[in-house]
C-alpha cells in the first residue's frame, strides 16, 4: 500500500442542483483546473503527432502544401493578380489565419463526442475541452508563423508599422473559431448531422473569404456585403497589418461586434448545456 497518500481536506460544501434558469459562467473554477487544462493540451498535441512519420513537421506540411496547390491553380493556371504582396507570401498568410479559425471551429465541434469517455466518468468544467482545442490550434498557427516569417524574409516583404496591430487580428480569429465551436459542439452532441454539415459550411465560408484571391477582385458594388463576412475582415486585416496589403473596408469593423455577441452567447449556451451533455453522448 502507498505509505503516504495525497491529502486534501476541505469543508467547502458543493451544491448539486438541476441545471435550470440563469447559469453562471463559473470562470473562477477554471483556475482550480489549470493543471488539467495543461495536461489536456499536452495530450492533444502529443497524441496527434505520435507514431506519424513526419511527426511535428505536419504542423507546417499542411499549410505549405495548400499554399503550393493554390499557387499553381490560381497563380500559374488562372493567373490571378495580388498587387503589392508576392503571391506565395499572400497565400501562406491567408491559409494560416484561415486555418486558425477553421481548425478551432471544427475541432471544438467534434471535441465533445471524442472526449465522451472522459466526460462520462469524471467531473471537470466542460469548457476546458474547447479551450484546449483552441490553444492547440494557436500552437499550430505559431509554428506556421515562423515559416511565414522565413518566406517574408526571402521575398523581402518588410513589416509595415501597422504590424503592431497583427495580434489583434489573431485574437479576432481565435475568438471567431471559438464562437462557432461553442455553438456547434453542444448541437453536435444532440444532432449528429451537425457534424456532417461543419466541413461543408466551413468550405463555403472559405470560398467566401479572401484566402487565395485578393478582395480587390470582388466587384465594387458587392464589396461592402462581402466584408460582412467576418472571415474577410480577419484574413485581409491580418494581411494588411503583417504584409502591408490593401486594408479591409471600414464596414468590416462591424463584424467584431457580431463575433463578440456570438462568442458571449456561445459561452452561455455551452454552459447551459454542459451539465446534460453526457446524457446524449
Amino acid at each position: 500500500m502507498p505509505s503516504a497518500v495525497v491529502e486534501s481536506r476541505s469543508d467547502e460544501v458543493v451544491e448539486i442542483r438541476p441545471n435550470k434558469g440563469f447559469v453562471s459562467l463559473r470562470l473562477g473554477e477554471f483556475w482550480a483546473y489549470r493543471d488539467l487544462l495543461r495536461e489536456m493540451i499536452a495530450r492533444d498535441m502529443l497524441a496527434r503527432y505520435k507514431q506519424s512519420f513526419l511527426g511535428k513537421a505536419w504542423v507546417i506540411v499542411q499549410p505549405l502544401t495548400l499554399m503550393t496547390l493554390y499557387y499553381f491553380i490560381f497563380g500559374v493556371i488562372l493567373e490571378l493578380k495580388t498587387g503589392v504582396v508576392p503571391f506565395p507570401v499572400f497565400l501562406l498568410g491567408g491559409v494560416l489565419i484561415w486555418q486558425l479559425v477553421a481548425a478551432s471551429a471544427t475541432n471544438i465541434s467534434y471535441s465533445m463526442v471524442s472526449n465522451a469517455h472522459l466526460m462520462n466518468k469524471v467531473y471537470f468544467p466542460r469548457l476546458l475541452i474547447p479551450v484546449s482545442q483552441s490553444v492547440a490550434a494557436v500552437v499550430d498557427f505559431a509554428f506556421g508563423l515562423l515559416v511565414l516569417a522565413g518566406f517574408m524574409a526571402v521575398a523581402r516583404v518588410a513589416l509595415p508599422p501597422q504590424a503592431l496591430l497583427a495580434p489583434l487580428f489573431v485574437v479576432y480569429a481565435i475568438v471567431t473559431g471559438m464562437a462557432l465551436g461553442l455553438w456547434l459542439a453542444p448541437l453536435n452532441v444532440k444532432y449528429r448531422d451537425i457534424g456532417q454539415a461543419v466541413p461543408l459550411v466551413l468550405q463555403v465560408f472559405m470560398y467566401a473569404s479572401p484566402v487565395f484571391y485578393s478582395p480587390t477582385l470582388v466587384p465594387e458594388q458587392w464589396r461592402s456585403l462581402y466584408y460582412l463576412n467576418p472571415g474577410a475582415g480577419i484574413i485581409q486585416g491580418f494581411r494588411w497589418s503583417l504584409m502591408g496589403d490593401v486594408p479591409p473596408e471600414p464596414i468590416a469593423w462591424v463584424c467584431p461586434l457580431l463575433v463578440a455577441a456570438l462568442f458571449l452567447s456561445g459561452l452561455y449556451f455551452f454552459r447551459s448545456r454542459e451539465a446534460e451533455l453526457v446524457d446524449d453522448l
Partner: protein
Amino acid sequence: MTEFAVEAENLGKRYLLGPSRELGGAIKSLARRALGRASESDARREFWALRDVSFQLERGEVLGIVGRNGAGKSTLLKILSRVTAPTTGVARMRGRVGSLLEVGSGFHPDLSGRENVYLNGVTMGLTRAQIASHFDEIVAFAEVESFIDTPVKHYSSGMYMRLAFSVAAHLVADVMILDEVLAVGDASFQRKCLGRMDGLTSEGRTAILVSHSMAAIRRHCSRAMWLDGGEIRAFGATEEVISAYLDTPSRLETSREVSYPLRTEAAMQVTAARLLPGAAVDHDLTEPLTFEIDLETRRPVPGAYVGLAIRDPSETIRYWTADIDSERFHNPVAGRQRLTVTCPPRLLTPGRYTAHFAVIAMGRPEPVFAMQERFIGFGVEDRGSFLASYGLLYPGMTAQESHWGAEPAPGDMQEPARTAHG
C-alpha cells in the same frame, strides 16, 4: 450532531428517450408543435432513472449501494460526482469529492505511462505538484518502472490495470465515490483493491460504493441502500438491507429484456435473456438447460466474451460458462446477435437459481465490463430422475450421473461382473 458529509433531497433524474437524433426530424417536430399538430411520435418517452432519492451520510460512513442493473445505481453516482445534473432535487457534498467510476477511464493509448499518470491524476483532481511528489511511489506500486515511457497500448492488461489503479489509490478525497472498481482484475489485483479500501475505511473516510459483490459490501459498508426501479427500496444496516435484497430472487422472471436506456459507454451489452423453452413450469433437471441471450455490439471488441453465471440463493456460483471459442468470439461484429447456450443436463439440484450475464474483455487496454446481475431467475425441479420416482430430493450441489462398476472381489468366483447407472 455530527455534520453531514453527503446529503441528498428528492434527487431525481429523467431521461427523454427521443424520437430521433436528426436535426431535420427535430425541426419538423418543432414545426408541427408550433402548428398545433403534434403527432404521436413527437411525444418523447420519459424514463425516470432515479426518483425521490433522499438520504444523509455522516463523516466517516461508508455506504454500499445494491440493486439490479437499471435500478439507478450508476445514475445516482453520476449525479453525486457531477458528471450529469439531476432533474429534480438537490445534493450537498462537503469537501472534495473524488470519483472513480471506472479504473483507467482517462488513459490515452498513444501516450506513455508517465504521461498518462499525469493526465489521469489531474483528471481525478490531483495537482501536477501532488502527482510529481508521489510519482515514483505510484510507479513502484504498479510495478511498471521499466515500461513507464512506453505507450500504454503496448502494456499487458495487467500492467495497464495496475498503473490505473495505482494512480487511483493515491487519490484520497473527503468523499470517495466508487463504482464497481473492486470487481475488475485478477485475484492479486482485487486483493490490492480490497486492501486499499480497508485503508480508506479505517482512516474514517466517507465513501459511497456500488458493487455487485455482497462480500465487498458486507466487508466495507456500515450502511447500505437498495435501489430498485430508481427508488430507495431499503436503507439501513448493511446486513438487513442485503438480506432483504437477496431474499427476492423468486420475483425474477425466466425471460427478461432491459427496459432502461443502455449504458452508452458500453461497447457490448446483453439486452435480453430467456430460459428456453420459457415454460411456466420449472426446469426439469434431467433436461439440458438452454438460454437464449440477445447481445448488442456497438463496437466489436476483440477478446470480449459473454459469460453466464448461475448462482444459488446464497450467491454461490454453481456454474459458469463463457462463449470463448465460439464463432462470435473469433469474429466479433457490430449489431444485434442472438446467442444460444446449452448447458448439460443434471447440472443443478432442485431449488431456485439466478442467472447473471456479463461481457468481459480483460486482454485489452480498456476492459469491457458490462454486467447484467440477477438478470433472470428460474426454478429447477426433478421430474425425471430415479430419485424423483421415489419422491426423494436430490441432495448436494449437482445431479451428475456417475458410472458405477462392480465385479467379483479378487478370490471370489461366484457371479459375472455387472454395471449399473445411478
